[in-house]
């Protein structure tokens, strides 16, 4: 595990990713914020947080995209751009890999399941919670 000093620097790099995930980010950009070499940043980040900086970045972008696809009326291309991707192909394939569905299908399927517009359906959360809080 990283030392306290190194953790502070790592956190700066991680916060930079979290604050700027909607823009194109390179490993060098992230590592620079942590005052570490890209290789060292990657290695210590993975060891500390259990995922690489890029995996963290993809997770944040896909989570944001999921929310936008359901609660906003943006086109898929707009969602793609708004979460920081410049290539629709890359976005779609990463989204598919993370969720098991292409963005269009994800939106169509969840919208169809929800009784209210621009809301996630009860089936999007674990059933025990849906039953407990929503009776569904």
């Amino acid at each position, binding site marked *: 595990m990283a030392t306290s000093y190194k953790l502070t620097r790592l956190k700066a790099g991680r916060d930079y990713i979290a604050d700027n995930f909607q823009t194109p980010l390179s490993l060098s950009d992230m590592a620079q914020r942590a005052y570490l070499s890209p290789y060292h940043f990657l290695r210590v980040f993975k060891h500390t947080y259990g995922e690489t900086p890029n995996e963290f970045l993809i997770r944040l972008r896909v989570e944001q995209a999921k929310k936008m696809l359901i609660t906003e009326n943006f086109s898929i291309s707009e969602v793609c751009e708004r979460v920081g991707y410049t290539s629709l192909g890359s976005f779609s394939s990463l989204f598919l890999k993370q969720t098991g569905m292409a963005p269009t299908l994800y939106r169509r399927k969840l919208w169809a399941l929800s009784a209210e517009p621009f809301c996630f359906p009860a089936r999007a959360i674990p059933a025990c*919670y849906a039953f407990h809080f929503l009776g569904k």
Partner: protein
Amino acid sequence: MITSIAHATIYVLNQEEALDFYINKLGFEVGDDMQVEGDFRWLTVYPKSNSQLQLVLAEPKEGPMFSKDAADKIRNLVKEGAFGAGVFETENCQETYDALVAKGVEFMQPPTEQLYGIEAMGVDNSGNWFSLVQR
């Protein structure tokens, strides 16, 4: 075989205020923040180093499982500190304790040597107790 725990519930008095506490005081991150049909907000947080266990910040409200009376009782129990949020682990209890105290987090017990490590005991802004443990 069950391999891990994915979600655990913390009853809070106000989701927005609890979110502020867990993010801006404890330094957690938002997992899900989804508006679900039926006027339900699915809100989860997790410590930065472990996104595998998400804490569900849920308000006890009248609904399918709770009568108004039951929801009120749970809210009162939360306020009274009858529930615990569990144990949060840290690499350095004293350092984390100092940082949290500086942010205004309330503690009932400062870092203290225990059989299982060094432990401080705090409370969230709803009334849930939590332990901060260095093993």
